[in-house]
Each structure stands twice: as structure tokens, then as C-alpha cells.
């Protein structure tokens, strides 16, 4: 029998491992459209804890990772309020979650969140993801970052849309494509969401420093 060269086997193994690693998208650990979204229990600016399961009549949610400190988030505050006021009566309320670590981004402290919510009169909860566990589970990378969930027959919530509110962060008057509204309208009509993924420029999430 021929002697097999061990180093060669090692090299083949290494190559295979390399291919496998290249095939799995790196850092893409959060939810994709179609995944089941987990519930959470996070503290609202009024001091009460909020969970998806608190909403008995919801058909879904507009879970929005947003914050005080990002100008893009601030630019979208009024549009987020309008989105809630339009779609909460149809069963799709907004739940805003601030994912930023307050030590890294002091503007996003709980006290500053309370103040911002009061100033703007947010008609939806503004929750603080202090451990950043939910932000990681969802896979949010920027603010603002929307995850629209739809209730399934089993009562679980599935991710139906991931992306941005519309195509123009700078000027609400110049908006031409209302991506989030289009997705919600598809969902309410019982249709497949035609454009379930969109992207926008936003601020990086301020992760806790190790």
C-alpha cells in the first residue's frame, strides 16, 4: 500500500475548511425575511416593561431600531410617528428600540430617551435594549433599521420586511418610494411582500466596548 503523505491530507482539510467558511456569510447572524422573530421584554421610557405578547390584537409590528444620536434617525422621527398613526389602527403598531450603549453614546442614555420621547410625543413605546441582546438577535446594524413582523397562524411573528422607511432621508417632500408602506400594504392585503429587503445609509450601532 502506498504511503499517504500526512501534510497533503492536512492541506486538503484546510482547503475544505476554508471553502466551508467562505460559503457561510460572515457576520450575517441576524434575522432574514421569513425567520421567526423572538419576543422580548424591554424597559419603556415610562418605566414599564414592553413585550410583543402584551399586544393582543396586533397583526404584526413595525419594530424599529432607532436612537437619539443619529441624524438619520432624527430625520425619520416624524415619519415614524406618521407610520404608527396610519398603521397601528390596522394592527401594525410601531415599537421603537434604542440599541446604542449609553456609555459609548451618552445622548442615548435612558434619561435622554425619556426626554426625546416627551419632546416628540412618541405615540409608541421607545425601549432601551440595555444588554443589546435583542439588537444582536434581530441582526440590526444601523439606525434607523426596520423589521416589520407579521403574525402567523400559529401566533408566532415572522419577519416580513427588513429595511428602510423610504428612499429619501433628507427631504420627506421629495420621497418617491415609500418602501415600508408598500410592504405593509402588501401584508394587509394578504399578498407576498414584493420588495422585502431595502437598504439605506445610517449610523452604526454603538456597541458596548469590551
Amino acid at each position, binding site marked *: 500500500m502506498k504511503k499517504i503523505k500526512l501534510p497533503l491530507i492536512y492541506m486538503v482539510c484546510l482547503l475544505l475548511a476554508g471553502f466551508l467558511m467562505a460559503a457561510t456569510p460572515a457576520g450575517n447572524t441576524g434575522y432574514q425575511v421569513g425567520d421567526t422573530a423572538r419576543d422580548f421584554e424591554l424597559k419603556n421610557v415610562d418605566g414599564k416593561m414592553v413585550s410583543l405578547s402584551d399586544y393582543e390584537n396586533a397583526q404584526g409590528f413595525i419594530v424599529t431600531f432607532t436612537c437619539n444620536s443619529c*441624524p438619520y434617525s432624527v430625520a425619520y422621527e416624524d415619519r415614524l410617528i406618521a407610520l404608527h398613526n396610519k398603521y397601528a389602527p390596522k394592527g401594525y403598531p410601531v415599537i421603537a428600540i434604542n440599541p446604542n450603549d449609553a456609555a459609548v453614546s451618552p445622548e442615548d442614555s435612558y434619561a435622554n430617551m425619556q426626554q426625546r420621547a416627551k419632546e416628540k410625543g412618541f405615540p409608541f413605546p421607545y425601549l432601551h435594549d440595555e444588554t443589546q441582546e435583542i439588537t444582536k438577535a434581530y441582526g440590526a446594524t444601523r439606525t434607523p433599521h426596520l423589521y416589520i413582523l407579521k403574525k402567523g397562524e400559529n401566533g408566532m411573528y415572522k419577519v416580513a420586511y427588513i429595511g428602510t422607511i423610504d*428612499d429619501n432621508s433628507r427631504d420627506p417632500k421629495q420621497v418617491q418610494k415609500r418602501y415600508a408602506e408598500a410592504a405593509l400594504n402588501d401584508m394587509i392585503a394578504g399578498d407576498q411582500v414584493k420588495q422585502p429587503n431595502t437598504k439605506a445609509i445610517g449610523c*452604526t450601532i454603538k456597541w458596548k466596548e469590551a
Partner: protein
Amino acid sequence: MTQRLTLLFAILALVIAAFSTASAQEVKVVKFAELEKLRQQPHDTLYVVNFWATWCKPCIKELPYFEAVNKQYQGQPVQVVLVSMDAPQDLEKRVHPFVQKRALQSRLLLLDETDPNSWIDRLEPKWSGAIPATMLFNNKRKQYEFVERELSEEELQKLIVKYKP
């Protein structure tokens, strides 16, 4: 008298020249097509393209590292390009003063596009849209790397050393 005047003018000219070399680069407002063209540059050059904005704190923190690379590799095939995501409406009141104050020397572009969903994937499908983000490429050598987060000075230096021709 005329000699003194000549001397005075000469000094003045020198001072002006010194100031003008230290002054910042011009910001060029571009459409996405120009960015795409940059991404396709066929030269044996390492392009270091950083996406930033004047309102982005982590971006501002890492800008000096890119400026340092630009200075350090002057005359070498390494080109730093800083692409601002600021609104074109903010060019005069925000971007220009910022660029002047910091006397930025790298090549400066400002992307004039509204719907990022229409162009992000064409540039880099892995990019979620968060800034800062940096892409390094040398198309001649088929090298490419994309980073969607803030870089430390050490990380950036390592990337440059890894790819510089």
C-alpha cells in the same frame, strides 16, 4: 525702495504659496456612476475608499488615520478617497467648513444620490448601509476587502501594508 518692495512682494508670495499648499482639497460632488467608475479603475493602485459624513462621530474619529495614510504613501500607488454621505445642500454650510478646518488632503467626493437602496447593492451587496464603511481594492491584482465598521489606526495600517503594491 523698489528693492524693499520687491522683497516684500517676494515674502508675500512665499507666504501665500505656503498657505495654499496647506489648504484643503476641493470637494467634488458626484453621481453614483462616478463611484462605479472609481471602483472599476484598472490600475495597479491600492484604492482606499472611506464612506463618512460630518455628522458621523465614529467616522470623524477615524478620518485622521486615513489622512495619515494619504500623507505617508504620497507618490506611491496608494490612493485614499473620502466619500461624504452628507447632503449636497449641506456642502457650503457644513462640509466645506469641516474640510477647511481640518485641512483634509485626501481626494474628496460627495455622493449626490437620494435612494441608497438603488445603489448600495451595486457597489457592495454585503454593505447594510451603516457608516463608517471602507473598501480597499486593487483591480489589477484582483484584491478586494470591505469593512463595515470603525477602524483603529493599527487595523488600517495593517490593511494598507497587506495590500499596497
